[in-house]
């Protein structure tokens, strides 16, 4: 049999590479949040350490201490009191890199692993996506493998390690990780936790597909922005969904604003739908709801205007709320504000004439709206080369004849007002992709939309002059992972624990769950025990042998071989039995064999006999 040996220096190389990997895992999580110069220094030092490792040069301790102090102070030079956390993390990562420069015994390696773990933990302050879980798993496997290797080299004190043994150690590392997952899941469920993060810092950059004012022509790349705004858990509806966020009433020729804040009473009839929204903090203080909302269940909100909900504080992390809405509704309001009829100066004769021409055949308000809608279908929906200038509406209607939803909605609202029909523009989102696996809608920044509402015969009617043109395919699985991570892990707090605990009290099914948990933890303990035994079986027997021999007054010197040791015993009975054990043991140990069950039994029996000799 060809045994492949890996010498100690090679094993050290393996451990070194593993340690670099372990350090890089948290680094990949935080490098985009910390200063560039820190990243640069970190990578530079890691590269230098690789060079030094290859050349087998180790820097003296005093120099390392000197560099460490310098690097620790550096991040704090430009810090403000409010933001002490970031420089701390920067200092931490610099200390981590310094560890790589020194001569590394297992102590230094353990420090590296501990620092990396700390950093990975701190990375969760910036970003808690499900990739965090992947990082944790990667780190778990690598760290356990590295520690096993370190311990093996330290305990066995051999210059060589068998190639197969390395593979075995790696397998054990993976095994430990696999069985530790249910254990950590158990801890996850039972450990107490607070509903808010200990350190809640809003690092999330505000990107938004939403704005509380609408500037014509100044459209950003919303349509390309795939950022998820919200996920809405609900049944799938066959119709197109409109998510109402805000209404605009006042147009100054270029910009839509909100002025009306009267809370008119309205009567709504329709089909009720209940749903839960998980909202990213991207819509300023506004809470999107399915058009048209009846009630929203969350604290600290106010109804800015019927159908428009606003939080009292700007949310900084994902929030979750349930709401009830009507679909296929009738929204009746007895009277409306005169603001819905205001026409900006910018509306020229040309526009008024066009409006009159379009609606000349219409006999009632409903028909007027329909004919405007019909006229606008001749226009092209476009995202580039949008109408601009001093009068973008005119540019849209007469020159470019193409635009995005902002132009369509504006043009229609103005035309309605010209015809003396109260109208407003509603901002929000349209559609969303339904995830069949998760049972929820995903609404993205690119789903942002504007449409028109017209007050006809005491009712608000929705008109959407610009349909949405395209819909891209979603990667369902990654979305689902993201969603599950959010709803199961991140949203899991003390409330959820109480809920689980309460549900545990009820008998029957819940009782078995408790037993299941106990059984699972017992099973995991058993697994650990088995691994321990696997590693100790061989050594264990020999240790017992030495203990028994010591009890009888025979102590083996380090340089003595087993047979040499036994041959020096004068008591012939003990000697005979000890020899028997040693012969059997050597057969296994010096042939590098795994010990079989029978052999283990036999050796144990021999040890028992040896022990009894002493008692007699």
């Amino acid at each position, binding site marked *: 049999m060809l045994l492949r040996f890996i010498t100690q220096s090679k094993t050290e190389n393996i451990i070194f590479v593993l340690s670099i990997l372990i350090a890089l895992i948290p680094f990949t999580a935080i490098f985009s949040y910390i200063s560039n110069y820190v990243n640069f220094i970190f990578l530079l030092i890691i590269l230098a350490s690789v060079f030094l490792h290859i050349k087998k040069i180790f820097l003296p301790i005093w120099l390392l201490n000197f560099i460490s102090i310098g690097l620790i102070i550096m991040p704090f030079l430009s810090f403000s009191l409010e933001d002490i956390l970031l420089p701390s993390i920067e200092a931490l990562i610099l200390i981590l890199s310094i560890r790589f420069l020194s001569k590394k015994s297992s102590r230094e390696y353990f420090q590296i692993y501990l620092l990396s773990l700390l950093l990975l933990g701190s990375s969760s302050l910036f970003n808690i996506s499900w990739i965090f879980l992947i990082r944790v798993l990667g780190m778990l496997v690598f760290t356990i493998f590295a520690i096993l290797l370190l311990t093996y080299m330290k305990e066995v004190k051999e210059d060589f390690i068998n190639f197969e043994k390395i593979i075995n150690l790696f397998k054990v590392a993976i095994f430990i990780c696999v069985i530790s997952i249910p254990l950590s899941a158990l801890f996850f469920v039972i450990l107490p936790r607070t509903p808010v993060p200990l350190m809640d810092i809003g690092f999330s950059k505000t990107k938004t597909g939403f704005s509380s004012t609408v500037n014509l022509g100044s459209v950003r790349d919303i349509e390309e922005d795939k950022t998820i705004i919200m996920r809405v858990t609900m049944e799938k509806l066959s119709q197109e969904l409109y998510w109402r966020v805000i209404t605009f009433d006042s147009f100054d020729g270029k910009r839509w604003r909100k002025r009306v804040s009267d809370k008119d009473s309205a009567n709504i009839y329709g089909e009720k739908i209940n749903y839960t929204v998980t909202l990213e903090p991207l819509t300023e203080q506004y809470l999107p709801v399915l058009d048209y909302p009846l009630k929203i269940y969350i604290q600290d909100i106010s109804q800015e205007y019927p159908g428009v909900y606003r939080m009292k504080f700007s949310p900084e992390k994902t929030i979750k709320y349930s709401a009830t809405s009507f679909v296929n509704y009738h929204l009746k309001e007895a009277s409306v504000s005169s603001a819905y009829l205001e026409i900006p100066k910018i509306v020229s004769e040309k526009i008024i004439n066009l409006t009159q021409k379009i609606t000349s055949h219409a006999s009632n308000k409903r028909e007027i709206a329909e004919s405007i809608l019909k006229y606008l279908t001749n226009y092209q929906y476009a995202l580039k080369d949008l109408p601009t200038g001093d009068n973008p509406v005119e540019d849209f209607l007469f020159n470019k004849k193409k635009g995005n939803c902002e132009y369509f909605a504006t043009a229609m609202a103005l035309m309605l007002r010209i015809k003396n029909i109260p109208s407003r523009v509603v901002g929000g989102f349209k559609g969303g992709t339904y995830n069949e696996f998760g049972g929820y809608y995903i609404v993205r920044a690119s789903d942002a939309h504007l449409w028109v509402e017209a007050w006809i015969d005491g009712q608000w009617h929705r008109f959407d002059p610009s349909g949405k043109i395209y819909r891209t395919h979603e990667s369902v699985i990654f979305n689902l992972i993201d969603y599950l991570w959010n709803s199961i892990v991140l949203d899991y707090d003390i409330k959820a624990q109480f809920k689980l605990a309460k549900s545990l009290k009820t008998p029957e099914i819940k009782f078995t769950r408790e037993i299941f948990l106990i059984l699972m933890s017992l099973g995991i303990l058993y697994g650990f025990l088995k691994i321990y035994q696997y590693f100790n079986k061989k050594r264990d027997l020999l240790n017992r042998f030495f203990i028994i021999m010591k009890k009888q007054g025979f102590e083996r010197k380090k340089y003595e071989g087993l047979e040499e040791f036994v041959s020096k015993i004068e008591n012939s009975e003990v000697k005979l039995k000890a020899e028997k054990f040693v012969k059997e043991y050597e057969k296994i140990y010096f*042939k590098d064999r795994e010990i079989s069950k029978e052999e283990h039994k036999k050796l144990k029996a021999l040890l028992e006999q040896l022990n009894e000799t002493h008692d007699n």
Partner: protein
Amino acid sequence: MIIKNKKILQILESLQSCLQGKEKAIILSLIAIFSKGHLLIEDFPGLGKTSLAIALSKVLNLSFGRIQCTNDLLPTDITGLSIYSKNTGEFEFKPGPIFNNIVLVDEINRATPKTQSALLEAMAEEQVTVDGKTYKLPKPFFVIATQNPVEIYGTFPLPESQLDRFMMKISIGYPDREAEKQILKEGSSRENLYRLTAAIEKEEIIKIQNEIKQIYISEKIINWIIDFVNATRQDSRILLGISTRAALAITTTAKAYAYFKGRDYVIPEDVKEMIPFVVPHRIILKEEETLKQEVISSILQGISTPP
């Protein structure tokens, strides 16, 4: 030394009649033969070095050649030479005594360095070159060289680098009282030696050599041997540590010894038993007064033996 291997026991049984007091030397010689190495016996004259060589060649059924070294011995006296033949009119190669399975080189340190090196070359290469022609030596090929320890006049001591070619160096030692008594009673029995019968075939020797090669040696023991070798290289009392060839000799002899003991794996004790015969002649001490055996055993005590 308790031997358990049946084949080896058979050989020892055949040697029964001339074993008196030489048991250990014979076993060690057999170990050297079966691990394909050459043997150096250093002892005083008249203790049975030659008898040992003859007895071994008889029992192992091998051809036997003897070279008595003097300072006028020429390399061709060992290798043989080409002689002009009147009958054929051509040069004919007359092989020397080295063309035997067992070659006894008596008092090797009396030969001149030139002759010594011709012999040592033959030992290393297992072939000799005479007049530009190369001749293979028979297999198995095995040299037993002897030297007297205290001679001063007219000797050319073997340099350490040459000593490295010998797998083991042993001494026979004086027989104990009982054995000596026996010898005196029976008288010199050189004739008896030639009457010894073969206990083993040539093919079987090669087979045993191969079986010994297959003996398992754990990496734990290899590591320990390497520890030992490194310790000799770092020891302040030693001028020059032992070579890798020496380390190899330790493992092969340990394997052979394990085989003799009836095991198919090596234990540390095998190695410890062989070291005193494999190592001392390969090291040079800085101070002549210290005993090599003492230095070696102190080195062995400094490193921990597996497990």
